[in-house]
Each structure stands twice: as C-alpha cells, then as structure tokens.
C-alpha cells in the first residue's frame, strides 16, 4: 500500500515529466512549421527536374549515360534516412522495420549509408556493413549536405562497387500522416521518370548537346532526390515527435488526475481515522 508521501512524490515526478513533454511538443511544432515549408518548397524544383529529365530521357544519349546503366546486381547499397534524436514515437522503429524487411528480401550483400544517428546506432549494433555515415546533420541541412551523400553513392555506383542503390525514407504527407517509402535511387530508371512527367511530345532545342545536358542534369537530379528525401524525413520526424509528445502530455495529465484522486482519498481516510481515535480516546476518559 502506497503511503500518502509516496503518492505525493509520484505526482510531482509526473508533473515535471509533463512539463518536459509539453515543452518538447511546442518546440517540435515550431520546428515542424519550418521543416514543412522546406519540404514543400523543394518539391517544385524536384518536379521541374523530373519534367526536364522526362522530356529528354527518350533520347539515345540518355539511355547511354552511365547513371542509367542497369547491370547484373551483385552488390547493393541502401541509404537509410533516419533522425538523430529519439522520442518521436514510432518514427524510427517504422523505418527500421522497413529496413529489416528490405534486407530480408535481398539475395545479394547490401552495404549501408546511414543518415541520422538512430539508424547508425541500430545498424552498428547489428554489425552491418556501413559504407557511409552522415549523422548530426544541421537542422537546416542544405543542398550541400545532400550533395555529399549523393556524390558518395554515385561514385560507388559509377566505379562498380555497388550495382544498385536504394533509398528508404519517411515521406511527409501531413502532420498526422507519413509513410515509409522504399525507392530505387540508382540506376536512374527511365520509365519511372517518364511515368512521373507529363509527356510533352515536342522537339526541344537542346543546348549545348543532349550528352552535355545529361552530364549536368543527372548528378543534379540525384542530389535533388536525396535533398528532398532528407527534407521530407525531417518534416516527418518533427510531426511524429509533436504527436508523440502531445499524447504523452495528455497521458501525464490523466495520470496526475488519478493520482490526485487516490491521494485525496488516502488523506480523507487518514483524517477519519485520526478523528475516530480522538473520539475513542475521549470516550475512554469519560
């Protein structure tokens, strides 16, 4: 049986937890606004990129570009975009579950590029092969950061160390809704690009030459995809955290209510008991 003092102590501790979760919720909400804006603003650029790529991808030069080359897959790489911090509900565990599923389905060895401390820790613990580690990304991870990751993946792909690169990240749908996506990053698939772009069947004047445009376009396209994935993942992380912390705050509130009720009941019982003793004592004297 908990004593009155135990319960009082408990209430105090839950209260301070509630304060922390409340603060975290508000911080996440503030960051979410910025993150969402960034994720949304990256989309028009990415779409424009896909459009240009779609308009060009049927040309012969496109099909010959090394980043388009499909090879026999002997080794794969996987980019996992997670967060640096925890306390964001099932955000990272959903991501890890998708990673596990992906890895289980593979018949060839897979090496990992981990983005975010959570997936780095998780996969290190399981002694997986990690080719690249990108943790503690700045909150305003800019295009340059994405470039570093994309560049390493492209170098590994072009130099034949891996034959396919896939990408797992959390797509931001709305504050209450996000989805873990697994996509093929390299080789760039002409069909996927064509499917995504509205077909404009016209003859573009290409300057300088299709080959040169491709040379400039494809690396940028790859960078953009990583950048968008990071921006989306970041927005998802904060929305997940905001919701997780919101419900934690609510639960703490409920817990405080129940504990307060118990405390009051115990106190009342103690008072009644004391009164009964006094009355009993007085009776004995009389």
């Amino acid at each position, binding site marked *: 049986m908990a004593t009155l003092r135990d319960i009082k102590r408990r209430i105090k501790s839950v209260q301070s937890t509630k304060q922390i979760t409340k603060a975290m919720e508000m911080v996440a909400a503030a960051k979410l606004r910025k993150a969402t804006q*960034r994720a949304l*603003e*990256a989309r*028009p*650029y*990415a779409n*424009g*990129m896909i*459009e*240009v790529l779609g*308009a*060009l991808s049927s040309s012969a030069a496109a099909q010959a570009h090394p980043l388009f080359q499909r090879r026999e897959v002997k080794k794969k790489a996987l980019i996992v975009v997670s967060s640096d911090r925890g306390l964001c509900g099932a955000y990272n565990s959903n991501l890890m579950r998708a990673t596990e599923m992906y890895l289980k389905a593979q018949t060839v060895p897979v090496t990992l590029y981990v983005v975010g401390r959570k997936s780095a820790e998780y996969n290190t613990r399981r002694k997986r092969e990690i080719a690249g580690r990108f943790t503690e990304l700045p909150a305003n991870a*800019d*295009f340059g950061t994405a470039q570093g990751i994309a560049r390493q993946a492209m170098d590994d792909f072009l130099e034949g160390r891996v034959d396919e690169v896939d990408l797992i990240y959390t797509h931001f749908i709305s504050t209450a809704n996000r989805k873990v996506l697994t996509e093929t990053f390299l080789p760039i698939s002409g069909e996927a690009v064509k499917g995504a772009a509205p077909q*404009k069947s*016209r*003859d*573009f*004047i*290409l*300057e*300088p030459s299709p080959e*040169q*445009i491709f040379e*400039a*376009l494809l690396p*940028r396209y790859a*960078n*953009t995809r990583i*950048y968008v994935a990071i921006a989306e993942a970041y927005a998802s992380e904060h929305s997940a955290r905001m919701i997780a912390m919101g419900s934690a705050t609510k639960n703490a509130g409920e817990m405080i209510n129940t504990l307060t009720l118990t405390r009051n009941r115990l106190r009342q019982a103690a008072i009644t008991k004391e009164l009964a003793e006094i009355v009993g004592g007085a009776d004995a004297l009389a």
Partner: protein
Amino acid sequence: MASLFKLTIHTPESTVLSEDVISVTAPGAEGYLGVLAHHAPLITSLTPGKLSIRKADGQMDEYAVSGGFLEVADNHATLLADSCEHTASIDVARAHEAERRARQRLHSRESAVNVARAEAALKRAVNRQRLGDGKGK
C-alpha cells in the same frame, strides 16, 4: 505593350520568382541567350553568370545564378537554378571567402574530380562577387 510570358525560378530551397515578364537573358552553356514570349521549346544548361529579367512593368531585375537549367515550353519558362540571388542581396564577404577556399583547394592538388569541383566553386564565387559589387552592370 510587349507580350508577356510566365517565368518561374525554382531553387532546391525555394521558389524565387513566379510572374509574367517581358524578357529574360540567361547565361546559357553556349553564351548568353535571350528569351521573349513565344520562344520555341528549348532546354539548356546554364553556367554561373548574370540573369537579367525585364518585368511586366518594364523594370530590369538582375540575379546571380550559379548554374542550372532553363526550360522553355508553351510560353512558360522554368528556370531550375542551383542558387539564384538578387544582386542586391549578395553577401560579397561570403563570396570572397568562398573564392579563397576554392583557390586553396585548387592549389592543394588532389584528385582530378576535386579539381573540377573546385574550379566550378571558384567560378561561382567570382560570379557572385562581380555581380554583388555592382560591376556586372
């Protein structure tokens, strides 16, 4: 009244501009090129340089572009820029710093790929300085 066409400028970080304009002069890979309304469909890559826009009210606006693409189709020009800054808002000190870093990297002589990257970075930095100082006009 000159006829107008729609110009949209996207960078990875934001949409810089989306409005009707009279003309655009952009630093194409094979030299500066001008685009007016009803231009033929065109895709070109851009080099670091000055982007001049004549707005609907006849005002000229200048931006520093650091490379990207220009797509023109259906009287709609889409400029996908790596970065695009209004000349008035360029941080010249930062551009100088970037130039210094790029030169340092060029002198340190690493692999061939890095030299190409450093050269590109140098070009971007010099371009921003030039336009930021107002000498580009």
